[in-house]
């Protein structure tokens, strides 16, 4: 066993900012797994699959549901977090495929997630109030 004092000094590497992106990616991963199948089946593919009628997806019902105060949670869970999830995997995928790595690829990936998330939240705020 060694004690602290005997250890040779070591340079401390810079702390990564990945915890921020990884946390958003993980939360997004849960949302994709939990919410996307239901929304895809019932809303996006609901009418073609015959699972819901056009009346069930009426403008009045959807408007009331989506722009309800709790609807912001749906925008975050089904749009914003999945976006960060997707762009995180694309960022690492670019590195895996040796296509791009470094600061530019990183900020293009997360930057587009931030911009599109802002658009989504703005669209919701404009209609909800």
């Amino acid at each position, binding site marked *: 066993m060694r004690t602290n004092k005997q250890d040779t000094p070591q340079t401390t590497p810079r702390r990564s900012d990945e915890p921020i992106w990884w946390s958003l990616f993980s939360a997004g991963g849960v949302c994709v797994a939990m919410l996307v199948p239901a929304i895809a089946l*019932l809303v996006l593919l609901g009418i073609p699959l015959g699972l819901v009628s056009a009346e069930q997806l009426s403008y009045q019902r959807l408007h009331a549901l*989506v722009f309800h105060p709790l609807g912001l949670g749906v925008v975050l869970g089904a749009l914003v977090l999945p976006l960060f999830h997707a762009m995180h995997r694309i960022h690492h995928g670019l590195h895996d495929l040796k296509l791009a790595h470094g600061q530019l690829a990183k900020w293009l990936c997360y930057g587009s997630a931030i911009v599109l998330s802002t658009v989504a939240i703005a669209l919701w705020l404009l209609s909800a109030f």
Partner: protein
Amino acid sequence: MSRKPYQPPMPASWWLKHPAYRFYMLREATVLPLLFFVASLLYGLYALGQGEASWLQYLSWLQQPWVIALNSLALVASLFHAWTFFVLFPQVMPLRLGSRTLPAWLMVSAQWAGVLLVFVALWWLLGGLDAHQ
């Protein structure tokens, strides 16, 4: 005596070499159809804010064959993603009760139950009960 180590190359096609790597790349690629799903929702959110006429236009857009095809792909991708993601959860966050770890199958099943619950809840929110009475 001098050394002459040979550094094996790592080509960009490394992931084609083994089934485990191809599976990994397929898992990562689930985000590509997911991007289309997100775009569909974003368009829907915009259409819903524009009024009834544009919402009806959106609903008919959803029924175009290529949109149905891509959203079906997104559905399959999300289920495949769920399958891979749920298995990882007990590995990354083993839940302990005292000195025992909760069995992995229990944590995986609980997550699938969550998927089912969300489906039923959304079906109910969309008036599924009234529509089928």
